[in-house]
């Protein structure tokens, strides 16, 4: 049985193809302005990698903010549903899922089958999402992918007063003018997102184990800040940005 999951995210579109329970191909493309085209492209890429054609796929389930743009999908699953499913599949002991994407943060409590018990989402505000780090990286003139490492070098915790990304940008500029070391500012940025996410996770309630998924989980600086805030170790998959697509591919097998 071959199924696929597609996660049409705010920033990236991801596809996972599974055959008899094993992942055989993955792809990631920028969502850009034409999410429909991005969805097609991502699927083509994954099919090519798996050496398959469209008709070999029995069922496709879509998730993510642009899920309706994946016109080839048979059905859809919510972002919360796919994140929980994908995470519990990878880490059967996970009961709390923290999913931080480009424009949304989610805290989910799930049972041992990956079913969602409770959740909270922040989709209204860039604070507490990848967009926050991105905006600060621009203000700091640090490449986004270097933000994590740089933050680990920090020796001082500098408080950040602004929550709003727009106000935080001005604050970052003031900190630069005050000659605050860049690594300390970057850490302050990660501490700020972590604190937003943590308060959302606490609202939903923490049950162990806790897993961190979504593209922002690749940022080691953010991960460190999260750990310090939660005072807990977290399970982090190898490819955290693919968890939603994986969850959708699992749902596809169930919905077939």
């Amino acid at each position, binding site marked *: 049985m071959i199924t696929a999951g597609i996660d049409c995210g705010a920033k990236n579109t991801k596809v996972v193809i599974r055959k008899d329970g094993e992942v055989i191909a993955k792809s990631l493309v920028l969502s850009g*302005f034409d999410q429909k085209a991005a969805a097609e492209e991502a699927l083509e890429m994954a099919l090519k990698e798996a050496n398959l054609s469209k008709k070999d796929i029995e069922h496709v389930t879509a998730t993510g903010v642009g899920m309706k743009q994946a016109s080839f999908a048979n059905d859809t699953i919510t972002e919360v549903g796919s994140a929980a499913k994908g995470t519990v599949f990878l880490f059967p002991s996970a009961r709390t899922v923290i999913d931080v994407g480009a*424009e949304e943060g989610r805290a989910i409590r799930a049972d041992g089958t990956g079913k969602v018990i409770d959740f909270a989402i922040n989709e*209204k*505000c*860039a604070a507490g999402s990848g*967009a*926050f780090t991105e*905006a600060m990286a621009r203000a700091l003139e640090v490449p986004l992918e270097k933000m994590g490492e740089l933050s680990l070098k920090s020796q001082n915790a500098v408080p950040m007063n602004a*929550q*709003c*990304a*727009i*106000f935080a940008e*001005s604050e970052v*500029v*003031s900190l630069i*003018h*005050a000659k605050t070391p860049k690594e300390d500012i970057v850490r302050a940025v990660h501490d700020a997102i972590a604190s937003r996410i943590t308060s959302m996770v606490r609202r939903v309630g923490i049950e162990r184990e806790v897993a961190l998924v979504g593209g922002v989980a690749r940022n080691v600086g953010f991960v460190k800040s999260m750990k310090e805030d939660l005072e807990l170790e977290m399970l982090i998959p190898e490819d955290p940005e693919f968890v939603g697509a994986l969850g959708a591919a699992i749902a596809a097998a169930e919905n077939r």
Partner: protein
Amino acid sequence: MSQEYWRWKEYNWRDENIDWKEANTITAGVDVGSVSSQAVIMTDGKLFAYSNMRTGSDSPDSARNAMNWALEGTGMKQEDVQYVVGTGYGRVNVPFAQKAITEIACHARGGNMMYGNTVRTILDMGGQDCKAIHCDERGKVTNFLMNDKCAAGTGRGMEVFADLLAVPVEEVGELSFDVDEEPEPVSSTCVVFAKSEATALLRQGWPKSKVLAAYCSAMAHRVFTLLERIGVEKDFAITGGIAKNVGVVRRLEKEVGMKPLTSKYDTQIAGAIGAALFAKALLEKSRK
């Protein structure tokens, strides 16, 4: 970037007909906001001179610069000012002020003079926050609500859009009416997301004016929710920099169902006027 579209014009003003040397009281209010700073000098409770400029990274410097610029060309020196009250976000950093008073109290007090004592609801749309204030006939605050956590509905949000669309911020309001039909408001609350939304709309071929119309109405709606929570009592007035943006103001008056009062005074100096009036009252009290 060659041009900074968010940059509005800084200026100073003075009343040539007033001979300050004749005045019994000379007081000043300095409002150090997060985005702009104003210094107002009053002689016997009348507006004598003021300045309005961008706040720098250092609050004490901003306060001093604003004060010096208000004094410029008047022949008056800092020592001639008998009492100074600081207000605004950086009010504790006005080194030459005798007292600091919150901007909420100052906007109510200043609004009372600028719009007359019938004003009961003042919406102060500032650079980094927005406040809905209820006040009585003497300009005393009776209740207020504020948003200072989020850039949506603030001047800073408008500056971001001016920059994004390369339209001078002072022209945004007029341009936003250059549309055949009023578009749906921008749906994202967060300014960061609204920016992405606007970029997508431009890609779809929307003209700048239509995108600005959608943003101005989103902003009007955002501040309306704050007003709605506290209630709008007649008369209604708007202070702060956004009060000069007709794109937001006209759309907001439609939502409120009430026209805001207008004033001959500059809406950005409401806080500093209030501070200067407080300074006068404090000076007179100290002389008794």
